[in-house]
């Protein structure tokens, strides 16, 4: 369980997020949605200790994020941001091996290698394993980074816009992989998503943010509602029922 209580973060006087309190359930996919500048990425960064908080507390699986040992936290929670530019030249395999650093501190044992192989197989990267990241497409790189996070083998996985750079096919594959991780391995996954239809189709619950506050938090089904969405995005978003699924049509 991730418990966020009265969390605030300011940038040069402006509020990134203010007074956010939130409980994210275990073994489920939770998506953060909301307009640009609503504080989705900021909230994710503060939860994952990438940004220090100004006020409030975050507890992940009972560990206080601002007080716990960083290495112990790294065995419990992993975070992947949306821009992943590297200044070093790495192969896919080498990148994924970095995921084992919290467990092995750089010296891989048999168990570490097994986890690396498994993560690479899970993301279908076997053929690209020896390739340098610079030579991959955006989508392939994205999958390689997700594989690193999988190799880290944490109970909680936080992803900032994991569908960035991915085409339709790979977006669907990515969401299916994440779904499998929760259903089969019981992982708790928190995502920032821009496409509310993806959020609707794969999440268990959705947190809507607006102006740095939680506008609404509920099960995916109840959040995909014209009135709720209107309140979040300030535009009309008709919701249609298609094949038993709710689909938002916001294109025009």
């Amino acid at each position, binding site marked *: 369980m991730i418990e966020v209580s009265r969390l605030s973060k300011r940038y040069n006087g402006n509020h990134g997020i203010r007074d956010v309190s939130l409980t994210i359930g275990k073994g489920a996919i939770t998506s953060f949605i909301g307009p640009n500048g609503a504080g989705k990425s900021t909230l994710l960064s503060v939860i994952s200790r*990438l940004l220090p908080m100004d006020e409030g507390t975050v507890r992940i699986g009972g560990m206080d994020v601002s007080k716990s040992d*960083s290495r112990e936290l*790294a*065995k419990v929670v992993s975070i992947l941001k949306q821009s992943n530019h590297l200044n070093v*030249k790495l192969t896919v395999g080498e990148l994924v091996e970095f*995921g084992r*650093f919290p467990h092995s501190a750089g010296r891989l044992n048999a168990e570490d290698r097994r986890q690396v192989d498994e993560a690479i197989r899970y993301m279908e990267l076997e053929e690209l394993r020896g390739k340098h990241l610079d030579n991959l497409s955006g989508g392939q790189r994205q999958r390689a980074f997700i594989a690193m996070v999988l190799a880290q083998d944490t109970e909680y996985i936080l992803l900032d816009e994991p569908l960035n750079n991915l085409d339709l096919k790979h977006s669907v594959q990515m969401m299916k992989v994440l779904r499998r991780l929760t259903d089969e391995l019981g992982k708790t996954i928190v995502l920032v998503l821009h496409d509310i239809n993806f959020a609707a189709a794969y999440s268990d619950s959705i947190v809507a943010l607006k102006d740095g506050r939680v506008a609404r938090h509920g099960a995916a089904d109840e959040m995909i509602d014209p009135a709720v969405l209107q309140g979040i995005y300030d535009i009309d978003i008709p919701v249609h029922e298609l094949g038993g699924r709710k689909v938002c049509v916001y294109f025009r």
Partner: protein
Amino acid sequence: MSDKRKLLLLAIVAIALIALFMTIEANGIWEYVLPRRAKKIAAIVLTGTAISVSTVVFQTLTNNKILTPSLIGLDSLYLLLQTAIVFLFGSTTLTAMNKNVQFGISTIVMVGFAGILYKLLFMRKGSGTIYFLLLVGIICGSFFSSISEFMKMLLDPNEFMVVQDKMFASFNNVNGDILILAALAALAAIGFFYRDLKFLDVLALGREHAVNLGVPYDRVSKRLLVFTALMVSVSTALVGPITFLGFLVANVAYRLMGTFKHSVVLPATSLISFVALIGGQLIVERVFTFSTSLSVILNFAGGIYFLYLLLKENRS
């Protein structure tokens, strides 16, 4: 070729150069030649290691392969100190001053300055502290350079010659006592910061990945910056400003080894610096018969390499 074989090859070249340097044109007067040359080799090994390691660590921390630790402003401070002594007390004071005292003063002033910078650094919280430090370092560095330039303008030409001599690194008159002192300081620094070095590979991925992978980023990066400053101070106080060498050998090492692993890059960089320094020193002594200084040769070669890198990066 595997990393180990490349390292072995570099080690062989370095040792061969050392052997050549020790024995060339000795004319049989070994008791005189060997200890003097051994002292130079020791100074070269010490400075080469200090500059190489500090440069690689600094570049990893800043995630930038064309920076050198001279950005912190330590070199300019050293030059300012030398200029100020000549300006205020005259060149005879500088040349007659006890070498130990001179080394002590230089080291204390540089480490003291680094201490003040880090005091600032530790007061600031959150991300971007490294860039803040660089900014302060650049400003202080330019300030020190301007003041020493101003003093040089007012100097008597003869006095200026003495200062100019100090502007270039030289291994020609290294003092034995100082060498031992500097070696002890460098070893102590490496020992004290050794456990932070294992984080370097992860730090190269950048702050966010490092934090995600459980590196206590703020503490480790600050400690490593202190380490860098110590190494630069020791080597600069020993032979003069020579950080450009670090840039040169670090980039040659990255290219040659083609790996990100610091357990390979750090020894490779050090070995390449030995080759560059001993080779350069041989050229200075045997080809130019001491009519030029080692830094001039290194800066010439390094400058050409730097331009080459710029042009190449520009094209890709």
